[in-house]
């Protein structure tokens, strides 16, 4: 068992992809930044000095404390200062990044699921099924995805009972962003499927009577996953930004449980009055997160593109 694991690790280390990765300082740096942010977010409850989602632990008099300065009323001091409610900005960023990442990852998974399903069916069946699915995709592509997310979010809020809205808000966000993003996966998977389905290994599988579902999932899917992973990585950065945008517009998560976008929205109100840290640090965190994931996606796209080798 151990031998097999180390064997595959060695193989992975010597693979083209890993070699390419080691030779790209941008990719290494981006991976390091992304990894540390993801780890910090995942382990936020252990790392954060306080829990910003517990309103009972907050002291309003701590509000607007500048970074590394003693508060005039309470004597408390915070590394990155506090926001308008006396929340520690560092803890809020850690918890906020956790929320942003969770929404981003779930939204991408949801979009992948939808897009791959639709793409496989459209590519495999062709005919009117293909036409209908792809025209729907065309219509959706003609709208900016943030508008679609806003539309879905608005409709969903109308459908959910008021007292359920807070608990459902995150899931509504995930579904809105996911639904606005599935088209790209569907298109890529469809075209790849159309190429693959005429190849000999698929023909052979059909002749020996393998069911279409099995062919699609076991034979074709693994061969179209390369480009899907590239889209998913870049899509993750976009989903994080979409979540931040929605929260910035005030339609995302409730204000008592801020994500990075909510924090930026709050901080933006205090820009003119000189409390820059409420805006700046969450904005840097969002920038670092989105940029590093995006750079990784770019690198992956180039690395997997045979024409660029």
């Amino acid at each position, binding site marked *: 068992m151990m031998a097999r694991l180390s064997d595959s690790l060695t193989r992975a280390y010597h693979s083209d992809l890993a070699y390419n990765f080691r030779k790209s300082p941008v990719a290494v740096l981006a991976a390091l930044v992304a990894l540390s942010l993801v780890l910090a977010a995942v382990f936020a409850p252990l790392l954060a000095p306080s829990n910003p989602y517990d309103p009972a632990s907050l002291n*309003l008099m701590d509000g607007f404390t500048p970074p590394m300065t003693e508060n005039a009323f309470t004597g408390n001091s915070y590394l990155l200062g506090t926001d*308008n409610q006396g929340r520690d900005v560092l803890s809020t960023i850690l918890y906020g990044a956790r929320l942003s990442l969770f929404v981003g990852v779930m939204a991408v998974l949801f979009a992948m699921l939808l897009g791959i399903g639709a793409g496989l069916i459209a590519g495999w069946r062709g005919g009117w099924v293909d036409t209908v699915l792809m025209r729907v995709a065309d219509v959706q592509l003609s709208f900016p995805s943030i508008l679609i997310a806003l539309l879905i979010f608005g409709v969903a809020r109308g459908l959910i009972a008021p007292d359920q809205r807070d608990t459902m808000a995150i899931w509504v966000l995930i579904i809105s962003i996911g639904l606005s993003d599935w088209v790209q996966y569907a298109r890529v998977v469809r075209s790849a499927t159309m190429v693959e389905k005429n190849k000999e290994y698929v023909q052979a599988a059909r002749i020996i009577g393998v069911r279409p579902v099995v062919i699609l999932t076991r034979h074709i899917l693994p061969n179209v996953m390369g480009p899907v992973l590239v889209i998913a990585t870049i899509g993750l950065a976009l989903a994080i930004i979409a979540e931040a945008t929605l929260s910035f517009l005030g339609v995302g998560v409730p204000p008592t449980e801020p994500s990075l976008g909510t924090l930026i929205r709050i901080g933006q109100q205090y820009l003119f*009055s000189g409390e820059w840290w409420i805006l700046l640090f969450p904005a840097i965190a969002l920038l670092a997160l989105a940029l590093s994931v995006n750079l990784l996606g770019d690198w992956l796209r180039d690395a997997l593109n045979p024409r660029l080798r």
Partner: protein
Amino acid sequence: MKNTLSFKRLMASATALALLAGAASAETLRWARVADALTLDPHSQNEGPTSTLLHHIYETLVARNTDGSLAPRLATEWSIHPDDPTVWVFKLREGVTFHDGSPFTAEDVVFSMERVKHPSSGFQALHSAAVSATAVDDLTVHIQMSGPSPLYVQNLTNFFIMDSGWAEANDVVVPQNFAAGEENFAVRNTNGTGAYQLVSREPEVRTVLAAYEGHWAETPDVTEIIYTPIAEAATRVAALLSGEVDLVQDVPVQDIARLEQTDGITITTGPENRNIFFAYDMASEKLISANVEDNPFAKPQVREAMALALDRDAIQQVVMRGQSQPSAAPLPPFVNGWREDLHAYSAPDYERAAALIAEAGYPDGFSVTLNCPNDRYLNDEAICQAVVGMLGRIGMEVNLVSQTRSLHFPLIENWETDFYLLGWGVPPFDSAYVFNFLVHTREEGFGSFNGSRYSNPELDAKIESLATMTDLVARDALIAEIWDQVMADRVFLNVHNQVLAYAMRDGVTLPVHPENQPNMANVTLN
């Protein structure tokens, strides 16, 4: 002969030149504030920004000066009938026309009185003591009261007069029922007698008003108003700093200091006739959003605990940056009935408050949803967030739902919220207004904003009698008595009285209006 002619010509060309010069100089005022009017139907919504915009288009019989006194507007004189103390007599202004040219007569006042008393009107409670209006002649109106009502004229500062003929022609005889989501012609079209007429309106985006040339008063300095609601505080300030707007009505408290130091910008501040408070369902068997089977707010211990948990001084210092007057009663200091002891509040005591919650039967606390507007009052959402934290310290898990005010207010009017934030101004400058809308049992003409479901028949009778009392000393004593009961029952969890700040570019002068109802016809430009 020839001379006279050329003199006339000279005058005419001089006038034309003056007009040209006038048109060329900046007489447009670009005015921004946090929110748009909810509707232009003048009798539908009794709400600040709505009334402010309507005051430019429609006029009232009497207006409120910035010092709080009454000024003649469509009525030139008003008095109680010498022979009958239950009748108010109004002499109307001569030569007033509506924007479509039709003359203003007593019939329009009679019609508007009927309309404002309709059940779908938001102003009903102000006119509960008025039985009917009759036109004695074209310029005299008698309003028959149910009893002597010496203070009734104070209720008329937001009583907008509509053209009866226009209303009938356009099928808007009945006010829009806003809470039911209705629309009518008057929501987007107007025909008033005001100094400005509507040029164009895109709700929530931009409303353009132009001076009405046929107006009875002198032409105002400002001949065109471009009204833009800008919900984001920082964007509003940025618009003023960059010269995109000339006047910002709702200046965020955090930016007052910075704007005061900016060249070319003037800030005026003053206390507003408006209190910000929390209220809760005190009467239902069970709450909509709570995780317990009974109603915690019905228990006096819980209400006392909440009062002990509210740290008003912290809210004033941190959230409001000193720009508020913390108080225990929802009554601004210049309103009749205000007393020093109503204003007094005790320092927070979290231990005692937590003990009271346990004593009330909730040793593990309970959870409840708080509804809050996020675009109506100064830092409304931040106040709610702060209170969520304070109540969390005594075992109440409060889920905050903050949303735009057109979604928030119907929750109170339709009894769909357990616990909410509300701001209340007192346009008639008398406590009876607070009682009529917020304390009296909800029934026809009363209690439309009584979201606490508070009902005390004995108190209702006292409140109703206020409308007809002529002995003002006895009346003030009764007001004091009612306040004592309201405070003892803790009907309100009051936070503070709001302080207003207007910011404008140099050259624009507008004094702070205590009801936050500035009229741009009063702006002086230099």
